[in-house]
């Protein structure tokens, strides 16, 4: 074999191997998608939206409790997390800038927290919010306030609020980083034009800069909500679970993800089926948010 033939041979071999690994990878992923869709369509019917959880074997069992619980958990953490994340992003981009040490530290820490194990966030929130000995309740000031005003704290039992706190902690870094990136794309001349009209900085930010980056921020919000919607581990010991409908956030509350986990690991076939239905609904929701986020970005680029 000549040198050239050898090079061509090696080239073909590597191309083949790489295509093969792509095929293997994509085959696995298609496999998961197919079983998700097959099982999901098989398991979905109207009962799921009408009935709450029931003991195994009951005809009239559904996921109403988990759907409503999930919507409440995600909805409230979005309402809290999005403004906080955007405002922190505003600080990084508008007050901190590229060179500020503090802003860069916040950026690095948020980048790390985005990939940090979410189960640890759950453990942390448990220790902070649910543990009655937590420093949140036992420090001098709060102990006095709780005693004096007879405040009901979240201490002592699992609650929807604890789950919301955990989800918000996970959501903020994602929104903060996209907001920061998107605001920096807004041209400086726009800010200068607004300043020249005599607008104070906060007005420039709220009415010019944030408006200019609206679609980009929206993408960040959609992706952040999508990411948080699939979280299970941080909810295990915060919002816990409930097999029945509950809309009181100071009590344990059902979520699709934890319900899915409990049902899938149960030995009952009808519960497992409900688990697949939950998996299907949740994945479709998350995929829709992701696709929406992309469409918004592409539309903006076309403008």
């Amino acid at each position, binding site marked *: 074999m000549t040198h050239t033939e050898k090079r061509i041979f090696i*080239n073909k071999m590597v191309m083949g191997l790489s295509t093969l690994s792509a095929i293997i990878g994509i085959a696995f992923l298609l496999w998961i998608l197919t079983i998700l869709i097959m099982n999901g369509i098989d398991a979905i019917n109207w009962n799921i939206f009408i009935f709450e959880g029931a003991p195994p074997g009951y005809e009239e069992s559904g996921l109403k409790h988990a759907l409503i619980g999930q919507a409440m958990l995600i909805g409230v953490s979005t309402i809290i997390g999005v403004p*906080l994340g955007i405002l922190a992003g505003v*600080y990084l981009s508008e007050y901190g800038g590229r060179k500020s040490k503090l*802003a860069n530290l916040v950026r690095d820490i948020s980048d790390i927290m985005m990939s940090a194990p979410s189960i640890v966030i759950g453990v942390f929130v448990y220790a902070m919010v649910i543990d009655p000995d937590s420093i949140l309740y036992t420090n001098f000031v709060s102990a006095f306030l709780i005693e004096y005003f007879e405040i009901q704290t979240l201490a002592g039992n699992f609650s929807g609020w604890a789950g919301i706190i955990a989800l918000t902690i996970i959501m903020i870094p994602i929104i903060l980083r996209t907001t920061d990136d998107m605001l920096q794309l807004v041209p400086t001349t726009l800010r200068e034009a607004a300043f020249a009209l005599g607008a104070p900085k906060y007005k420039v930010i709220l009415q010019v800069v944030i408006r200019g980056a609206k679609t980009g921020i929206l993408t960040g919000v959609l992706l952040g909500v999508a990411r948080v919607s699939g979280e299970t581990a941080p909810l295990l010991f915060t919002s816990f679970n409930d097999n029945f409908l509950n809309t009181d956030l100071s009590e344990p509350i059902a979520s699709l993800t934890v319900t899915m986990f409990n049902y899938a690991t149960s030995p009952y076939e009808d519960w497992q089926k409900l688990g697949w239905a939950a998996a299907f609904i949740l994945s479709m929701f*998350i995929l829709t948010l992701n696709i929406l986020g992309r469409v918004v970005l592409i539309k903006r680029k076309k403008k």
Partner: protein
Amino acid sequence: MNKILDRFFHLSTLSIALLTLLVTGAIFGVLFQEAKPAIDAFGFDFLTNSKWAPNLEKFGAFPAIMGSIMSTDLAMFLAVPLAIGVAIFLSEIAPDKMKTPVGVSIELLAAIPSVIYGMWGLFYFVPIIRDMFGGLGIGLLTAGIVLAVMVLPFMAAVTRDAMNTTPDILKESAYALGGTKWDVIKDVVIPYAKAGIIGAAILALGRAIGETMAVTFVMGNVHKIPSLITDPATSIPVALANEFAEADEDLYFSSLFYLAMVLFIISFSIISFAKLAFLKRGRK
């Protein structure tokens, strides 16, 4: 008036930005404080002791730590070559018409929640392993494979992005010198994208080591160093997910916090190493 409002706005955004630092610090602080009784009782022996017996109040994290390391190593061993293969395929080999649809679907798969990968593993993969190797089908090998499949889309997408940053002009010059596709990939694309590729792999490792739901279904939570790769095992997140809600003794509870602290320190270090050393900001 405007001045006061300006000040107020500045300070409120600043305090929220600081809140993120505060929460991160608080996580370290609270975990340490809650783990204190176990740290006092076991010290560093906790990390090397392999007996985990809640009824005897004896706690050693060695099996969980080893389980974490072994399952993620196995996952990386399987996923890294596949991810690089997929990335090479997507950035260099696939025809242009295929690049976008395949690339986007891989990115979308990275968004599917890990609990669903876990369900897939339990219902579809465990029986296959059981038929092939006997035993329960639940264990280290299954966990490693499920983890590998879970991190694959993420790692492939980041690696592809890194490879795509190679300027066309560099690749074209190499082709002009008579290089084959493989020559161009190994001598131009991979060296150019090296930092990104290594960073993607380390970041995937950092994520995999803290991953809970994908492995909780299929690992078995047995606090023993497995003698066979198909034996049930445990990992730190799996032990936390299974035992945290039912721990009753103070020392048991504290030991779980100790575990959580070890996990947080390990993954925090791995992720920050990946982000700071390889995936520097402002690369775009």
